[in-house]
C-alpha cells in the first residue's frame, strides 16, 4: 500500500502471476488496448529474443479522482518460464493483490498447481500468509478443447467458494476487465480495513 497525501496519490501494485504461456502478458496487452491512452502509460516489456517475458511487463492505469485522491494502478506480470523462479519472487515484492492466470487445459493442471504453490511460498517468504492477500483467479483459454470445469479447478487448487474465479478468453478480451475490477475492489476494501485499525 502506498498513499502520498502531498501528491494526492494512491498507488496500488497488482501482479499477474501464473504458469508459462497461461496468458499473463495477453491480459496486459488487452488492458492496454481497452483503456483510453490519456489514462494509461505505455506498456513496458522486458523480453527475451524469443519474445518471452524476461523480467516483467508493466502498465500503469490512472483512474479518475476519488475522494480527493488520484488512484494509480500499477500492473506487473511475472515471467512464466520455470527457470525464472527468482525473478517471479522479486516481482511479487510489495504486491497489494494478485491475479492468478491459470491455463484451463487439463494437460496444464500440474503446471497450474505448481505455480500456485510456488506463489504461496514466495509470498510466505515476505511474511504474507496467502489467504490474507487479496487475490482473484482467472481461468483462461476457455475457448480451447480439453478444459477443466471451474468446480474441478477449485477442488484441485483447494479454493473456497468465496475465492473469485473468472472464466476468460484473454486473446479476445473476454474476462479481462472482470478480474481486474474484482482485485481492485478487494484491495481497496483491505486498505480501508488497515487504515481503520
Amino acid at each position, binding site marked *: 500500500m502506498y498513499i502520498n*497525501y502531498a501528491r494526492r496519490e494512491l498507488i496500488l501494485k497488482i501482479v499477474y502471476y501464473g504458469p508459462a504461456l497461461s496468458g499473463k502478458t495477453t491480459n496486459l496487452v488487452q488492458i492496454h488496448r481497452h*483503456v*483510453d491512452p490519456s489514462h494509461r502509460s505505455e506498456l513496458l516489456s522486458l523480453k527475451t529474443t524469443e519474445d518471452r517475458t524476461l523480467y516483467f511487463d508493466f502498465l500503469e492505469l490512472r483512474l479518475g479522482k476519488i*475522494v*480527493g485522491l488520484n488512484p494509480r494502478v500499477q500492473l*506487473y506480470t511475472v515471467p512464466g518460464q520455470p527457470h525464472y523462479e527468482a525473478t517471479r519472487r522479486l516481482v511479487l515484492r*510489495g504486491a497489494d493483490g494478485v491475479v492468478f492466470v491459470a491455463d484451463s487445459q487439463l494437460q496444464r493442471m500440474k503446471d497450474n498447481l505448481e505455480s500456485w504453490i510456488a506463489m504461496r511460498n514466495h509470498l510466505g517468504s515476505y511474511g504474507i500468509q496467502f489467504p490474507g492477500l487479496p487475490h482473484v483467479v482467472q481461468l483462461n483459454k476457455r475457448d480451447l478443447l480439453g478444459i477443466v470445469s471451474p468446480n474441478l479447478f477449485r477442488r484441485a487448487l483447494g479454493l473456497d467458494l468465496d475465492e473469485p474465479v473468472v472464466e476468460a478468453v484473454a486473446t479476445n478480451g473476454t474476462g479481462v476487465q472482470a478480474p481486474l*475490477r474484482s482485485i481492485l475492489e478487494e484491495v*481497496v476494501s483491505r486498505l480501508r480495513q488497515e487504515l481503520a485499525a
Partner: protein
Amino acid sequence: MIIGLEQQSIIDAILSGILVRTSALMVALATSDGRPVALAGRHDGVNAAGICALAAAELAASQELARIIDDQDSCQAILREGQRYNLLIYDVGRSLVLLVVAPRAQTIGWVRVVVRDAVDELNKIASRFRDWVPAEARRAPPPSQASIGEALDDIWVEGDVH
C-alpha cells in the same frame, strides 16, 4: 507506506539539492517495490512510473545476486556508465530506491559523494516516519470498493482504442 505533506517537502528539498549540486538531468525516489515517491529535474513526457519500476527492479535483482554470493552487507548501489549520462541507483534503508541521472561530464566521484550524503538524510527521514500515519490519512479515507470499480469502468473502452 504513507507519505504526508511534511515528509514530501523534506524529500523534495533533498532531491532538489542533489539536482543542483550534481547538475543531474533527473532525480527520482521510489519505494523498493517501484512506486514513485518524488521526482526532480526534467521529467516531462518521461514514463516516470516505468522508470521507477525499472530502477527498483534493477536494485532488487542486484540485491538478489548479492544474496546468492553471500555478500549482502556490501554497499547497495549500482552505477551504469553511459555515453551521455551516468545512472546511479542507491538503496535507501531497504524501503526506498534513489535514482540519479547525471551528465557524463560531471565527475562520478563527486556525484557519489553528494548522493551518499542525500541517502543518509533520506534514511533518517524514512526511519523517522516509519509506521507513522499522518493526520491527513485520518481526515481523508481511501476510496470505497464501489467507487474504484466505477473509476475503472469509466476509463474502459469497449473495442480497440487504437
